[in-house]
């Protein structure tokens, strides 16, 4: 690569080549190939047991892959111990050292590396300010709230100035309101620091809102990787289509689908409109959820099973009403008998 070419391509922060992991006889990860650009926020998302946490631990060096190679910032990281990979990690349970105070927690690793005391103090104060931890430095973890412990865990990772930040479901232990706030804080953190971040979650909302790139994992394989909006608009298979987007995409199989030349049809609740004229599907409203901002109607149709329809704002329609539904043009997804997207 010439110098000009190299300058215009963002450097690769992380490269996974054919990563496979087996526990005993069970395949947990199969043939994972991925390249992460520097500065990107990548989210691994998938249901429980899909292998995302295992993949994160392999990247961190807490587990060794059964086969395949791992490169961090261009250098091979196979077999390199976690401390030498230049990573920082935030755990689901925060994993703070209970016997040390906040300052101790954040500086233990630096002391071990032999970094001079004034440099440690400098980094500590910078992180404490960024995360609003300054008044808490002398407290022990048991005296902190969940959100505060969260921030200390992040602070502990920041002060090491890592090349790669790893987050393992950091918001799972927080209550709903705190989760939204912390999500925004993490997004801000990424903006300010610009470090490459790998984030694991089972929550597709977190994935959609935080990621530059989403990697959907299921049964140990990458189902699709790409920008959030691409996964939303053009899901590669039935699993991704059903996983991304809330409420879930409506799926219609059987004769209806075959008539359209596919084994399975998909249409999102927000892409169905209620019509009084020519309807593709008709049915009766079985249940209505009124949120104020939206209304979700669950319609039992005659030919397409039960469909969920989103109506913006409020509607007079309710249980027992007959409705006609038609998908918005171009918003009907088609999948073949293996679940793969048809163009």
């Amino acid at each position, binding site marked *: 690569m010439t110098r000009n070419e190299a300058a215009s391509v963002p450097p690769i922060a992380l490269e996974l080549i054919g990563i496979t992991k087996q526990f005993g006889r069970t395949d947990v990860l199969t043939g994972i190939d991925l390249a992460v650009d520097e500065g990107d926020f990548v989210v691994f998302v998938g249901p429980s047991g899909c292998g995302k946490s295992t993949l994160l*631990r392999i990247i*961190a*060096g*807490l587990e060794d892959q059964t086969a395949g190679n791992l490169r961090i910032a261009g250098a091979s990281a196979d077999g390199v*111990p*976690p*401390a*030498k990979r230049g*990573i*920082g*990690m935030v*755990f*689901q*349970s925060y*994993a*703070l*050292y*209970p*016997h040390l105070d906040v300052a101790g927690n954040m500086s*233990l*690793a630096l002391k*071990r*590396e032999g970094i001079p005391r004034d440099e440690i103090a400098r980094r500590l104060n910078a992180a404490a300010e960024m995360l609003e931890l300054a008044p808490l430095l002398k407290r022990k973890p*048991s005296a902190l709230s969940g959100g505060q412990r969260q921030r200390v865990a992040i602070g*502990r990772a920041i002060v*090491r100035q890592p090349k790669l930040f790893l987050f393992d479901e950091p918001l799972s232990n927080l209550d709903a309101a705190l989760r939204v706030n912390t999500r925004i804080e993490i997004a801000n953190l990424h903006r300010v620091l610009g470090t490459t971040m790998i984030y694991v979650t089972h929550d597709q909302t977190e994935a959609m809102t935080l990621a530059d790139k989403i990697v959907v994992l299921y049964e140990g394989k990458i189902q699709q990787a790409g920008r959030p909006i691409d996964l939303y608009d053009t899901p590669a298979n039935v699993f991704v289509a059903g996983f991304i987007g809330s409420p879930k995409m409506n799926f219609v199989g059987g004769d209806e689908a075959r008539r359209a030349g596919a084994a399975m049809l998909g249409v999102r609740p927000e892409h169905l409109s209620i019509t009084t004229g020519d309807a593709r599907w008709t049915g009766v409203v079985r249940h209505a959820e009124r949120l104020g901002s939206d209304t979700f109607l669950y319609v039992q149709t005659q030919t397409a099973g039960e469909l969920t329809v989103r109506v913006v704002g409020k509607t007079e329609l309710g249980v027992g009403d007959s409705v006609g539904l038609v998908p918005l043009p171009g918003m009907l997804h088609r999948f073949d008998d293996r679940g793969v997207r048809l163009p």
Partner: protein
Amino acid sequence: MTPASPAGRAARPARPHIIVFLAPAILVYTAVMIVPLFETLRLSVFRSVANADTFVGWANFGALFFDDRWSHGFWNALRNNVIFFCIQMVQNPIGIGLAALLALPRLRGSAFYRTAIFMPTLLSFVIVGFGWKLILSPLWGVAPSLLGAVGLKFLFAPYLGRENSALITLGLISVWQYVGVPMMLCYAALISIPDELIDAAEIDGIVGIEQFFKIKLPLIWPTVGMISILTFVGNFNAFDLIYVTQGALAGPNYSTDILGTLLYRTFFGYQLQLGDPNMGATVATMMFLIILAGVCIYLFAVQRRLSRYQF
């Protein structure tokens, strides 16, 4: 219904079941452990001559400390107890060390090691005492042959038969027997440390021995403290091993005599020596006071600084 029930208050309905639940334990415990203990304390301030008990205050204790008939035995036994205890304290670091190795993640064969190392703890003193006596016996030849095999034959001596080495040898045999207990308790404490905490340490670069001393050990201090105080108390129970290997006279020449064996001889007599319940009670009371002092020091000086961490 028991109107004297501590739970019976005007506003609350009587709860006789509390008494029922507590009674058996409290009765047996009080009758067989607490009352006899007070009886011992009482005997130590009396002297019985021809079936008449006379109150003598501190006289028995004075005799124990200063009267040649008793004091030599007492101070010797006390000194030996201290030495024995110091050797026993070796057992805890070994136990903790073994536990640390066993608690390493992904260590294969951990269950086998645990089972094997814990086995001596199950053996009775008879087996341990006699077994080791035979092995160390100069007549048999196992120990010299083994030492010879690693070129250390010159180290062999009839340890149990020599005054200056018998006590230490017995102390080490006791360590051999009981290492399993601190090992198991520390192992249990170590595996209760959440894995994610260890992961975080690995990522911070704190690994190996440093990880043990900086992260794991601080978190199991309460367990270590408890084991230490239990070793201290157990030390005063030591009798069986010495009785089995050296007899109640705790030879050679009383060099292995500790307070436990002294107590036995003083209470019940042995061969030429007549038993004296009052002096025996005095010895027992001294043991009790020493234990009490040790436990109080532990509870107030040490225990308070140890916090038990909730994970």
